């Protein structure tokens, strides 16, 4: 089981950032690498169990299922159903925690998955740097560091 953990501090209150990241269909709005997204079956994007199907700028196609959504904890958990990455049993959680000191937000993104052991280090680095950290960088540009 491989594990990825990336965390950052974003210069805006958690409830503001949450408005952006809670929308399971809104990846194209804040993640530069995502070109387009839709929710399968026309379900609402906050219906637990819904599936988002999205395409990356580089052409990659992924399907992810919303496993848990918490407006109380500012957290979203999802699994990958289909991807070009070569991962299995992939479950990730994005969570926001208020930093009461200064009205900022501590954001952490974790993922656990199985994969070919030979590819694990590269996958962990790639997901950590090019997906999670890149997403935090985008949020920091949008909301302030």
């Amino acid at each position, binding site marked *: 089981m491989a594990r990825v*953990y990336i*965390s950052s501090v974003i210069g805006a209150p958690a409830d503001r950032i949450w408005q952006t990241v809670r929308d399971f269909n809104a990846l194209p709005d804040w993640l530069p690498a995502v070109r387009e997204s839709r929710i399968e079956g026309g379900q609402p994007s906050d219906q637990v169990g819904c599936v988002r199907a999205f395409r990356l700028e580089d052409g990659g196609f992924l399907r992810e299922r919303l496993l848990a959504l918490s407006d109380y904890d500012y957290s979203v958990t999802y699994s990958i159903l289909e991807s070009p990455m070569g991962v299995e049993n992939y479950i990730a959680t994005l969570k926001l*925690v208020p930093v*009461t000191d200064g009205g900022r937000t*501590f954001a952490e993104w974790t993922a656990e998955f199985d994969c070919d052991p030979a590819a694990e280090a590269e996958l962990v680095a790639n997901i950590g740097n090019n997906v999670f950290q890149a997403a935090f960088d985008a949020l920091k540009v949008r909301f302030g560091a």
Partner: protein
Amino acid sequence: MIRVVRSTVIDAPIAAVWDILRDFNGHDRWHPIVRRSFLEESKRTDQVGCVRNFDLEDGANVRERLLTLSDRDRRFRYTIVGADIPLHDYVAEVELKPVTDGDRTFWRWSSTFNTPVGQESELAALVATEVYEAGFAAVRERVETRSGGERRTWDAAPAAPAVGQGMGAAIAGTAIVVDRHGGAEELRPQPAEAPPPGPGQVRLRQTAIGVNYIDVYCRTGYFDLLEPPGVPGLEAAGVVVDVGPNVGHLAPGQRVAYACPPLGAYTTVRTMDAGLVIPLPDRIDDETAAAGLLKGVTAEFLLHRVHAVTPGETVLVYAPAGGVGRILCQWANRLGATVIGATSTDEKARVARAAGAHHVIVPGEKSLEEQVRDLTDGRGADVIYDAVGRDSFAHSVAALAVRGHLVSFGQASGDIGPRDIGMLAGCSATLSRPNYVHYTDTPEKFGAAAERLFDAIERRIVTVEIGQRFALENAADAHRALENRVTTGSTVLIPAEQGEAET
């Protein structure tokens, strides 16, 4: 149920912050609201279930039990088990998370609790502001100071001449000289010089000097130790300027300390026998060493060598709020003894309890020995540390358990005078009258005692509280404060920062 959550980001790696926070009993080292803390029942600071017993700056006492501790999650939870503050059902959690983006630390401190009706907002604000946010600020300052190098180190001190350089030249300084026995006004700064060290000697530039009540006795002539004109003082810390031939354990630039006769510590520079000057570990700062070495080494040999205190023994300590008494309480408590303090006022009783005395007895309708027997199911005390002398001696003998040990190490109330040793037969008592010098007069003896003391200080078993600092030239003010009983904790004299010119 009230919920308080505060969080912050500390600009330091998580390991540095966790190193401070995981020490459950270490909060009196960094939290401004915590004056003094000890662990009950001799438990370890990372032992789940341990209880930290601490006093706040306003005097309130709080006892908290460690419920969970996880090095993996860098998280612990604790609950209040007794407090002078009405926080009920209080459970708190401290949690650290790494901020991988920048190698910083996210710290969240939260709790839930109940309060009496009407005090909700007041107590919630107290917890949030004076405990959690003040704690954030203190730890931030601490880790930043550590990494920022603002701590005073002796690398930054005036460069010490290496061995050989300056040989033959005395170093000029200032000493406090007593020209005749008398009042505090007899302590006068005078130019002094430290000659180059001869064989077996070391020359020191001193950074902190400990003040003890015995210094007053030396000044007044009550003790026949200072022959005017003379310089008082038994203990100090400093840095080695140079060493004479045949000194192997010290080197120029090294931080050192001593606590031994002959007198002469009230000075900026000093040349003395190197045998009883010991290197200071990094974690013992100069003021702590200067303020605590004499009292701490005394407590060390009283508790470990004159009588080796073992778990389950009952120890009676007179003057438990005094310099040596406080350390005896702290240390005996941690050795597993049941500690009884015998003192005179409620304020001193509070200090004794904070130091670790399980029971404190004050003069009342019952005699001291009756009170001790009431507390011990009639057994009496296994060991009694008595520096009161004349007024306490008979009571001490009467308060001993069978085969108990009376350690008489001072006579604050006057000479004990001749006594009939037959009185010891009533409980097959052992009597000791130890003398500091005989437990500390070789480098081996003193080094071993100091090492055990430093270990106890590092582990927070023993704390050295510096209540007041005076400039060395104002030593007279320090003595006046001591004689007027307006000091708290230990007193140190600080020589002026400027290096003295060589003559």
